[in-house]
């Protein structure tokens, strides 16, 4: 599929040999990257005047752990066949993914300012036909895990050793398709698949426990045949360790339940469902950026 010219990686795969991305960032440096991503999320949704900052801010460390430490990928060659796949099922966290991809070099950081605008390659929810590095079009919840199973099965059939990572929201797990998929992933024994749940405890209408109780959440995954690992979803070292541990699990899929805070990093957004799907005002952007300085 031909991408709009401006959305292509800054150096094309043809002119420069695409390298496998690697980062030697220390824990402190990763905290700085996290702040930068959060500033992008605030700035881009603020500029767009709409979007989903809450669930984007909660997913930042998960994306950093994956893109900077865990997955093998080549930002200059997004379709590299050997790449590990990251699938964003909670498509409304698109700003977090776009910020991560831009910081890795998939497209220029300047492009983030076009979020949600006409003719932007950065759609309101992810669109794999427009954005380099986006594996799946999402936004209608509950579909990513099934898709990820297909990608994992293809890897097995093609004798590829890539691994497949799929990020779900906890609220997303209200969807029945998630549990159809969970059952089948265990049945098909796809041990090259890791699901991560951004367990921020909230959905649009409020706390999960009030809207639709998911408890006992880890026990549900266990009962469906998954290896369950629980971590602090804002600790990159804990997340990285969990991903390493998941690589050793054979014969079953792994879910990492990442305990997070919705709106993490901005005091007035934290645990505030209002900011699930509301962009910050100009004034709020200023306040938030001050906190994230």
């Amino acid at each position: 599929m031909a991408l709009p010219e401006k959305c292509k990686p800054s150096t094309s795969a043809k002119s420069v040999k695409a390298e496998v991305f690697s980062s030697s960032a220390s824990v402190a440096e990763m905290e700085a990257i996290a702040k930068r991503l959060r500033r992008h999320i605030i700035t881009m949704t603020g500029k767009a005047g709409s979007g989903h900052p809450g669930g984007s801010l909660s997913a930042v460390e998960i994306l950093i752990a994956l893109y900077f430490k865990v997955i093998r990928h080549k930002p200059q060659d997004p379709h590299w066949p050997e790449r590990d796949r990251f699938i964003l099922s909670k498509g409304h966290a698109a700003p977090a993914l776009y910020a991560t991809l831009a910081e890795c070099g998939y497209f220029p950081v300047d492009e983030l300012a076009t979020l949600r605008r006409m003719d932007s390659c950065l759609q309101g929810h992810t669109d794999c036909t427009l954005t380099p590095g986006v594996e799946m079009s999402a936004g209608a919840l509950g579909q990513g895990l099934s898709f990820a199973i297909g990608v994992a099965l293809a890897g097995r059939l093609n004798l590829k050793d890539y691994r497949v990572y799929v990020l779900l929201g906890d609220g997303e797990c209200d969807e029945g398709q998630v549990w159809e998929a969970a059952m089948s992933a265990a049945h098909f024994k796809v041990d090259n698949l890791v699901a991560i749940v951004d367990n921020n405890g909230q959905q649009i209408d409020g706390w999960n426990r009030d809207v639709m109780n998911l408890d006992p959440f880890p026990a549900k995954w266990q009962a469906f045949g998954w290896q369950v690992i629980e971590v602090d979803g804002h600790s990159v070292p804990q997340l990285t360790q969990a991903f390493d541990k998941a690589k050793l699990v054979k014969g079953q899929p792994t879910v990492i339940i990442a305990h997070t805070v919705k709106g993490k990093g901005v005091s007035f957004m934290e645990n505030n469902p209002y900011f699930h799907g509301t962009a910050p005002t100009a004034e709020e952007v200023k306040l938030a950026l001050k906190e994230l300085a």
Partner: protein
Amino acid sequence: MAEEFYLRQAYGETLVELGKENPDIVVLDADLSRSTRTILFADKFPERFFNCGIAEQNMVGIAAGLAASGKIPFASTFAVFVPGRCFDQIRMSIAQPKLNVKLVVTHGGISVGEDGTSHQSIEDLALIGSLPGFTVIVPADAIETVQAVRAVAAHLGPCYIRLCRPKLPLVYEQSYRFKLGKAVTMKRGGDATIIAIGLMVKAALEAAQNLKREGIDCRVLNMSTLKPIDEAAITKAAAETGAIVTAEEHLEHGGLGSAVARVVAKHRPVPMELVAIKDTYAKSGKAAELLERYGLTAKDIGRAVKSAIKRKQLK
């Protein structure tokens, strides 16, 4: 009487052939592999067959993931459980990203018979046909089924093939070659054109034969590729015969009749009659009884042709 064959058996056998030819062919089913005949592929290539259980939405999503990774997935179950139950999954996971998934469904229409309303898919063509970029095919017999299945395997992009449950008499010779997007002239004629799909092609041919005895010479087109529809053949038929009757085992709303009417209205307005199910659900019964009750017989087509011709003469 012409020999009768199951279209779904032809499908299953063709899958096995394709499986031998191309290691990227994979097949998914949702606990109906004996009925859809994907079991033939499952027996031959168990490592490339995924029974997803009674979970069609998940099956559609897995198929999308396989297609995104270079596989050519054929996903099958009954027609009623695909576009209806999985509409959003097909829309977002397959149609929007234009993934190379082949949805081949069986037991389409009311000829499914005794199982009744819950199993009679009469809206599926409207639903699937509404999705941008989808190719939609309704073969008329087992020979065309084999060809259509091969054609979609070779075509890059999302495809839907709808097969019916009962055996159908052959309307083609073995030498027939299906062409994606091309209507087939089954019979020449100049007084009116009958455009049909699926099991209604045979009924259309019967109707044309009966009308011939009354001195009415009908053209019969098999519009097996419902989408993208052969606009040229429709426009030509409208221009040359001045009246069009469509015949399908589907609701009047959103199926073949609607698609043909769109083309006729745009390019060559002529009187049209639609032989289709009229805004109602059918019930349990034998296939032949149901087709008669809901107005889908050669006799109904014949009446519609006469009425269209009468309207043409009113001008």
